[in-house]
C-alpha cells in the first residue's frame, strides 16, 4: 500500500483542488476558487480537515465531465512527473513481486484514479466528490480519507481483495500515516515528516529518503 501524498509525490492533495479551481468556468469563479483553496491550505497546519473540506468545496457546480477531464490532465501532467524515482522503483518492485498494489490518497477519485491507472495500481482508495444531476456539490462523500486512514476501512479492504495485512508492505510519509504503517507487517517511511521519522526510529521501521535525486535507505529491518 502506498500513500500518494508525501510518499509517492511531493504534491499535497489540495494542489489538485487548486488546479481544478483555476480551471473553473468563468474568471470570477476561478479567482474565488483559487483564493479559497489557498486560504484553506494555509489553515491546514492547524486542522487538516479545514483544507480537505474547504478546498474541495470550491469545486461546487463543476460538471462531472470537467472534473473527470481536468482530473486526468492533472494526474498525467502534474502528479506523474512529481513521482519520486525511488518511490517509482518501489512500486515497480512490488508489482514485479506479484503483490496487489493499493494506492491511498486524500485526493479525489478523479485524480487518484488516473494516477493509479498510470502507475499500474490494482486498487485505489481515495475520496469521492458528491455529484447531483451531473454537478459536484462540493462535499466529499463519507467515509473520508484524511491525513489518517481509518484502520477499519483498511481491514475491510484487506478482507475484500483479499490480502494479509501482516504480510503486506505499506509506504507513508507523514504522522497521519502512522496508523497505516502500524497495521502492516512491513512498514516503510518515505521522506517522513519529523514525527513519522521519530516513530520510525522508535519502532525500527526502514526509512527511504530521496535527496536531490539520490535515494538513501536508512536503517530498519526490511
Amino acid at each position, binding site marked *: 500500500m502506498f500513500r500518494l501524498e508525501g510518499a509517492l509525490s511531493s504534491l499535497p492533495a489540495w494542489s489538485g483542488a487548486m488546479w481544478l479551481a483555476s*480551471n473553473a468556468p468563468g474568471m470570477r469563479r476561478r479567482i474565488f476558487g483559487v483564493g479559497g483553496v489557498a486560504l484553506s491550505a494555509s489553515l491546514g497546519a492547524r486542522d487538516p480537515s479545514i483544507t480537505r473540506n474547504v478546498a474541495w468545496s470550491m469545486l461546487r457546480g463543476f460538471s462531472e*465531465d470537467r472534473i473527470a*477531464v481536468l482530473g486526468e490532465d492533472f494526474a498525467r501532467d502534474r502528479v506523474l512527473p512529481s513521482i519520486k524515482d525511488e518511490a517509482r522503483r518501489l512500486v515497480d518492485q512490488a508489482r514485479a513481486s506479484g503483490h496487489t498494489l493499493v494506492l491511498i490518497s486524500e485526493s479525489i477519485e478523479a485524480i487518484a484514479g488516473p494516477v493509479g491507472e498510470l502507475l499500474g495500481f490494482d486498487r485505489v482508495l481515495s475520496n469521492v466528490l458528491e455529484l447531483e444531476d451531473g454537478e459536484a456539490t462540493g462535499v466529499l462523500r463519507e467515509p473520508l480519507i484524511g491525513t489518517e486512514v481509518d484502520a477499519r476501512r483498511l481491514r475491510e479492504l484487506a478482507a475484500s481483495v483479499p490480502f494479509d495485512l501482516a504480510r503486506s508492505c505499506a509506504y507513508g510519509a507523514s504522522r497521519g500515516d502512522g496508523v497505516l504503517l502500524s497495521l502492516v507487517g512491513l512498514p516503510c517511511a518515505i521522506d517522513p515528516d519529523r514525527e513519522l521519522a521519530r516513530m520510525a526510529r522508535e519502532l525500527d521501521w526502514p526509512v527511504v529518503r530521496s535527496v536531490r535525486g539520490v535515494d538513501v535507505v536508512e536503517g530498519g529491518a526490511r
Partner: protein
Amino acid sequence: MSAARMDPMAPRDVDDVGVRETLRGRSVLVTGVTGFLAKVWVAFLLDRAPGIGRVVVLARGKRGQSAAARMQRIIERSPCFRPLREQHGERLGAFLAEKLEVVDGDVRRPMLGIDERVLARLLPRLDAVVNVAGLTDFSIDPREGIAVNVRGANHAADLAARTAGRRLVHVSTCYVAGQGSREVDERIEPGRSPNGTRFDPEGELLAIESVCQSIDERLEPEDVAGARRERIETGTKRALALGWPNLYTYTKALSEHLLAQREDGLSITVVRPAIVECARSFPFAGWNEGMNTSGPLLWLIGTVHRRLPFQAKHRFDVVPVDSVARGMTLALADALRAPSRGVGSIWQLASSDHNPLMLGRALDLSTIARRRKYSKSDDPFERFVLANLDSVLAERSAEEDPWLPAARKATRALRDALVGFDPEHHLPRALRERFGTSLAKKARTTAKTLGSASRTLGQVEQMLHAYQPFVWDDDLVFRTNRVRDASATLSDEEREAFGFDVHEIDWRRYWLEVQIPGLDKWSLPLLHGERAPEDPPFPLDRAVRELRGGESSEDSGVIERAHLGAPAQMAMGEEAE
C-alpha cells in the same frame, strides 16, 4: 389510402433471416454517393455484407471527369474506403468489379437523369433504390432545395417504381418534425404540418415554385444575388408559417409528405437520422467529411466569442455516421424482407430517447477540449488568452441578444473611422511630421484586422440565427423503437456488425477522443479554405465499371483511369448529386 400507409407502426410478418442473408445477391441503386453519409454507407455495406449482389451508385460527371472517374478517385483516395483497401489490397479492383457499378445521372432530372438504354438494363435487376442525395444547408435556395430534396426524392421513387423490387429507402431527417418540444414518433400524417396546419403537399410545391419563378422574373438576371436572397426569405417565411424552422427541414418534410401520398403501391421505407457526426469506428474513429452541424459550433467555441445562446438542458441529438450506416442497413434489410405498400416504416436514428447528450454538456466538453488544445499552443494569443476563455451560456436567444450586433457595429464603426484616418487632417503638424507615416500605417493594419473581425462577428451572428431552432427554441425527443427492436432480434454476431449502437456511447469519450479530433482534422480546415487530407493514391488494378447504354465501360474494353485532379469541393450540400 391503405391502412398500412396510415399506420406505419403496425406489425408485419417478417421472416427471421439474418441481415447478410437478406442482402445476399441483392442489387441496390444508391444516390448521393459523393456525399458524407452515402459514401460511408456504401463502404460499410461492401465491408460488412460482401455477399451483396451489386451496389450501383449514381454519380454525376463533373469538371470533365466522368461519373466512373469521380467514383474511382473516391475509392482510391478517400479515407472512407481505407478499410476496403486494407482488407482487399491489390484485389480490391477485382472485388469492386464484381460488386460496384457506376451510373451517370442527376437526381434533379426525371428518372434520375439516367440514359433510357441504361435504365433498360438496370431496372430489371434492381431490388431497391436508396435515395441519400440531399442538400443539407439550413438556408438553401428553395429552387435548389426543391429540385434536389423534393423532386429528387420523387424521381428516385419514380425510378424505384419501375424496378423489379419496387422498393425505395429514402433518407430524410428527424427534424422534419418541425418546431416544438415534444416526443416524436416514427410516423407521418400526410398533409399535416408540425403546427397542425392542413396543406396539400403537391399544391405547396407548386406554390413555392411559382413564387420562386415570379421572383426570378422580377429580379433575375440583373440581380442574381438579390433574387436568391428573396427566394430564401420568402421560402423561410413559408416554412416557419407551417412550423418548420428552415428550408432544409421544410423541403425534406415536403418530400416525405409527397412520398406518403403516392398511390402506385411502391414500398417506401423512410430513414430519419438526427445530427450525423464523426464515425465511432467505421471507416475509423473520427472520420468526417464536409461541414456538418457541430463543425461551425466548434469553430465558434474556438474564437473569442464565448456568449453562446444554448439551452443547457436541451438535447443535442448527435448520431455517429457509422451508427446511421448500421441503422440504414437494418432498414434496407427490413424493406427487402417485408415490402409494404406506400410508406411502410419510418426509422428514426437518434440518441435523444435512449442515450441523450445535453447541449450544456456538449458545450462544456467542447470548451474543455479547446482549452486543452490552446494551452499547448505555441501562439501566445491562443496560449494565454483563448486557453483561459470559457464559453458562457447566454440568457437570451441569438435573436434577442443585443451583444453580438452591437459588437459587430462597434467594430465596423471603428474600422470605418480608421479607414478615414488621414494624418494630414487629423494630426497637428508637430505630431504629423514625427509620427504621421507610422500612425497611418498602423491605422491601415488595424482597420484590416477590425474589418476581418467584423466579418467574423457577422458570420457568427448569422450562424447563431441559423442554429437557434436546434440550440435554443426546440427540444425534441425522437423515438427510435424500430431500429432498437430490429437490433435486439439480431444474432450476437450480426448485432456486433449491424446493431444500432448509440446506447453504448460514452459521450465524454466520444466527444473528446472522436468528435473533436475528427472535426479538427477533417472538417474545420475547410472553414479556413484548406482541403481535407486525402490518402496517398491507391491505384486500382482495374477501372470501376460504369454502366452505359448497351454495355459497361469494362465490358466494352474501355479502361478508364481516374484523373487525379482537384478534389471535389466539400461544402454543405455536397450530398447532392
